């Protein structure tokens, strides 16, 4: 297994360099000069030139490409153009806890409700409960994130006045042991916005996977052994049915990034998603590249975890 992990990580380095190359040249293909953007319309030509020199933008592309890469490999992600001279890493470190907080809750809810729902729906196939679950998960999968977010603000926050449309919790408080739970109310709308689609897709997948497994011969045989229904479903069926769901949940960690951009824009949350979006708008290349690389690294690590989990759940999978 260790060999497998090492091999995967080695491949990850190649992937990262590839992604870096593509992102690097793509960002520079965007119209607009970062130095000009940072000084605004009224900045003088000399000032712009000065900044270009300071940021190394006057050097040839390949020199920039190489110099950023070597710095990055040493752990230096450079300085933000927009918030010069703050370090990119500092910006990311500051924003990360916000997104991580509501993201973790969203995934938690998406798992905790969907799997039991999917199992029960499959078990009671074609009953009202099952039909309702299918209907709602169909709706849940189809709802666009940003629209759902706006509707939640309009109805729950504005009309009913139950919560503040913008989460009003002091920075960092939500990562204290008490704050982790008490901040839930403030962040409930963004959490619902992100979790709905995930929950719906997990429910659908669990249900269909369960329906397939329940028809297997080994389930009939488990019943013929005299095992109670609960053991048949929870021990024999569920573990097999969960195999595709694990992949789906892994993918959802990645979807979180896309979801974060929209959700944070709708709810005015200063998280990684907003940082990413603003960086693109302000031609803040170091931030764009750093976030893209971190995201890629995340994909690799999550895929690796999914693979390892897979091998744990399903003995037929061998890691080689």
């Amino acid at each position, binding site marked *: 297994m260790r060999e497998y992990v090492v091999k995967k990580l080695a491949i990850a380095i190649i992937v990262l360099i590839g992604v870096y190359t593509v992102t690097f040249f793509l960002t520079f293909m965007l119209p607009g000069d970062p130095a000009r953007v940072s000084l605004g319309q009224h900045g003088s030509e000399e000032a712009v030139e000065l900044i270009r020199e300071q940021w190394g933008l006057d050097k040839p592309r390949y020199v920039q490409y190489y110099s950023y890469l070597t710095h990055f490999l040493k752990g230096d992600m450079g300085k933000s153009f927009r918030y010069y001279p703050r370090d990119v890493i500092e910006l990311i470190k500051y924003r990360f806890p916000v997104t991580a907080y509501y993201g973790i809750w969203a995934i938690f809810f998406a798992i905790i409700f969907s799997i039991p729902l999917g199992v029960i729906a499959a078990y009671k*196939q074609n009953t009202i409960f099952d039909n309702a679950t299918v209907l709602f998960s169909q709706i849940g999968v189809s709802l666009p994130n940003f629209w759902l977010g706006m509707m939640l603000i309009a109805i729950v926050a504005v009309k009913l006045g139950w919560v503040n449309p913008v989460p009003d919790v002091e920075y960092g408080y939500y990562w204290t042991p008490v704050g982790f739970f008490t901040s839930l109310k403030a962040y409930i709308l963004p959490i619902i916005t992100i979790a709905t689609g995930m929950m719906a897709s997990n429910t659908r997948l669990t249900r269909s996977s369960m329906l397939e497994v329940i*028809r*297997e*011969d*080994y389930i*009939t*045989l*488990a*019943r*013929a*052994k*005299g*095992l*109670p229904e609960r053991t048949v479903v929870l021990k*024999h069926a569920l*573990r*097999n049915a969960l195999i595709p769901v694990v992949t789906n949940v892994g993918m959802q960690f990645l979807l979180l990034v896309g979801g974060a951009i929209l959700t944070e824009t709708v709810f005015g949350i200063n998280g990684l998603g907003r940082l990413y979006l603003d960086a693109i708008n302000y031609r803040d290349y170091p931030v764009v590249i750093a976030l893209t690389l971190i995201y890629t690294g995340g994909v690799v690590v999550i895929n690796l975890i999914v693979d390892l989990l897979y091998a744990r*759940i*399903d*003995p*037929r999978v061998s890691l080689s």
Partner: protein
Amino acid sequence: MAEKDVLMEVKNLVTRFYTEDGVVKALEGVNFNLYKGETLALVGETGCGKSVTALSILRLLAISGKTLEGEALFYDDEMKEKLGITTDGPVDLFKLTKKQMLKVRGFTMSLITQDPMTSLNPVYTVGEQIVEVIKLHKGLSDKESKKQALKLIEEVELTPPEDIFIKYPHQLSGGQRQRIVISISLAAEPALVFADEPTTALDVTIQATVLGLLQQLKEEFNSSLILITHNLGIVAETSDRIGVMYAGSVVELVDKYTLFKRPLHPYSQGLIASVPKISEKKETLNFIPGNVPNLIHPPSGCRFHPRCTYATDICKKKAPELQSVENDDHLVACWNVKQVIKDLDKQGGASG
């Protein structure tokens, strides 16, 4: 058979499946009895209700299936003791509660399914899957259960048992897996084992050994065996008595020698005659004209009448009952069995 104690009497089993295409009348009054220690083969074409009979008795039909009528009377003191029933007489399986059925399944009756590739749970070791039954029905400790499981693995001739115990199903061959399934089915020493096409999915070369093993263990564990198959070769080899099924009911029930020598139901005659004999030189194979009936709209009366050369008016109107013919142990469900016998005697008793 020296003793002829009855283990189970199945009376008038009626099972339906409610599908989108309509109601499938899968079983229409299945009757047979089973003696202690015997092997009863249920034979017939695909879809005649052999497997459904087993699943109906085990009460393990899919959700769409329902047994509407019938009794399965069980004469087994061990089962009564386990269920805490003190009254005299047999126990009707269909009158037991769901909870009581859990104690019966695995303990009194067990099942061997057709395809060993799919009948073991891929995510647990075979050892765990055997231990599960032992713990459930014998209430032994983990250590004792494991010891018994190892013994069972040895009984089904897989060695070394310690190595097999920790194997996952995909690490074993089809034959090895079916041996594991057999050991699971016998783990709680049940009075009755249903073997549903136990060797159909196996290589021909190992079919005989697996069947032989099953037969030997069944005797060792003192169990009765209901062998469901469409393979008459297997039937001839292993069974004591044979129940021929057609379109949802047993049409003839008799010991295997009589069935092969002197089948009395027109369908059984056709079935036996359709087995090609290597010693006979023939241009065409024998077959029964017509098709297996659609069980959503089955023929009226005797379901075999559209394909039967003996069919008369009464056959279209009323289904015949299984009745003893010639002697008490030869049961046939046919209105015109007298005519059949007459014809047979004319030919000098040879099969048709």
